[in-house]
């Protein structure tokens, strides 16, 4: 699963995709992330159309849940919050 693929699929900017991927990888571990990323890539690619809808959703869900585990990432995806500019990354994290 590349940041580029995530940008195209979810409509994220490059820094957003990179940031969400890093956090999801950390949360899932290398293997867990790889398995979920592969399932996501297959289900959202051309072959995914061959899968029944329920199965497609089941393949997509684990990675989306890892990328958006709670309100913080949700607000980012909803465009309520933005990534901090370089050098301001810890502002507000009290």
């Amino acid at each position, binding site marked *: 699963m590349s940041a580029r693929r995530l940008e195209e699929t979810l409509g*994220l900017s490059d820094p957003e995709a990179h940031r969400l991927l890093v956090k999801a990888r950390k949360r899932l571990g290398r293997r867990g992330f790889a398995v979920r990323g592969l399932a996501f890539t297959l289900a959202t690619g051309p072959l995914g159309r061959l899968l029944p809808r329920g199965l497609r*959703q089941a393949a997509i869900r684990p990675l989306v849940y890892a990328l*958006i585990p709670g309100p*913080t990432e949700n*607000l980012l995806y*909803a465009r309520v919050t933005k990534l901090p500019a370089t050098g301001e990354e810890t502002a507000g994290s009290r």
Partner: protein
Amino acid sequence: MSEAIENVVIGSGISGLLVARELVAAGREVTVIERGPVRLDADTVPHSQREARTAATAHNTEPAPGSERPWKYGYAFGGSSLLWAGVAPRLLPSDFEMRSRYGIWRDWPIGYDDLLPFYQAAEQALDISGGPHEVFPGSDDYPLPPPPPSSVDRLLGPLLEPFGPLPIARRLEPEYPPSIETEGPEVETASNILAIGRELAAADGFSVRGETVAARLRRAGGRIAEVECVAADGSRSRIVPQRVVAAAHGIENAGLLLRSDLREGPVGRWLGDHTHVVLDVELAESMGPWSAATRDTGISYAWAEGDWRVERGSAVVVPFNPGLLLRDRIVAALAGGRRGTDLRAEMADRFARTAVVYVSVEDALREDRFVELSSHRDPLGLPLTKVSYPPDSDYAMRGVAEVRRGLEERLAPLGAKIVGDRIGGHGGHMLGTCFMGPDGVVDENLRHHRLENLYLTGGSAFATNSALHPTTTIAALAIRLGRHLASADA
């Protein structure tokens, strides 16, 4: 071998620690018995690490058939309070007078006015942030001011009057928009409880026995003569108490009495909890610039009070500050073939036009909800408690239906339509199994009707349910009991 102890408090949650604090302040000796480990710094570790896994902390309930409900409680110093979300309203004055006002359920032997000074003391002890509200007489003295209302409070509040600040533990810093670098700006309400625990741990006259279960109370005539304890390693000990305060939650307190064969009165009967429903309310237009504190900050009492409580449950409505969680919608949209910037724009629009509200509804008092002993045993050899709790009642569901209807009506100027509903978290409140009153298990001072040195406090003493969260009332009852015991000693 037996050891004589002046005051034995069973359970180290909010109730146990606040009773102990009052007694220790009066110069009395208190020993707290706690199933879980004693970690005075538990507020610095993740929730998953707060309970050690030992024979003492094996959860000891089993559901009766048809009663699968995820009861949430914790075995650790600080008790289930370590899992507390910090929501801290009082009960409504009418919650104490359901029989005399509406002819249903029962009256408490004490009223709101009796409890008022103890509510105020509890709010001080728990460091509650709140503001005055007409629904609650004497609510103008919170130790901390309310957090600023969120954008969704400001939008919905005027249409959901009476509406006001939601009392909540600790000052809420307006941390949104949060930094993506953090795992979420969590407000750690366990710190409020553990601060009391740390203060007690340093005080003369206080001690705690961790990883120890109060297995049984042994009676001799009209008194508790002995507390039989089992430690996590299986070793047994006996305490000869001058006084025993059972301060665990509603299932645990009832289980202790049943294990001890102290069955006088309706022990274990009338187990209560709330019904929680989450509603997604789609609005015609965007809610505008979004801002909020870290936790929910507003509450509506529009469906809380009225003669209609004879037939349907009272309800409170809390706008959910974090807003609509989009991930299930993203999954469905991706599976449906949507991608890229169009998908994200659609989700951002949905977020901006959807208010999420949390509805907490009073449930009926029901005879078929109760705690009894199981034939199965826990790892220490003690009988499990079996919990019968058939699903939510028509009384509560009629309350929910009225909120649904009324919400769309009141929010009509915003073009509101309810587009989703789901069950919220259940099982966090275990109330009423040893209720206070002349036909209950304890009297107005929380003393057992037949055993002169046994007191029961916590949610188990509640005589009725409410739509409102019980923690502040549990704390107020504990402080009231602690002061009563201290003065009786004097």
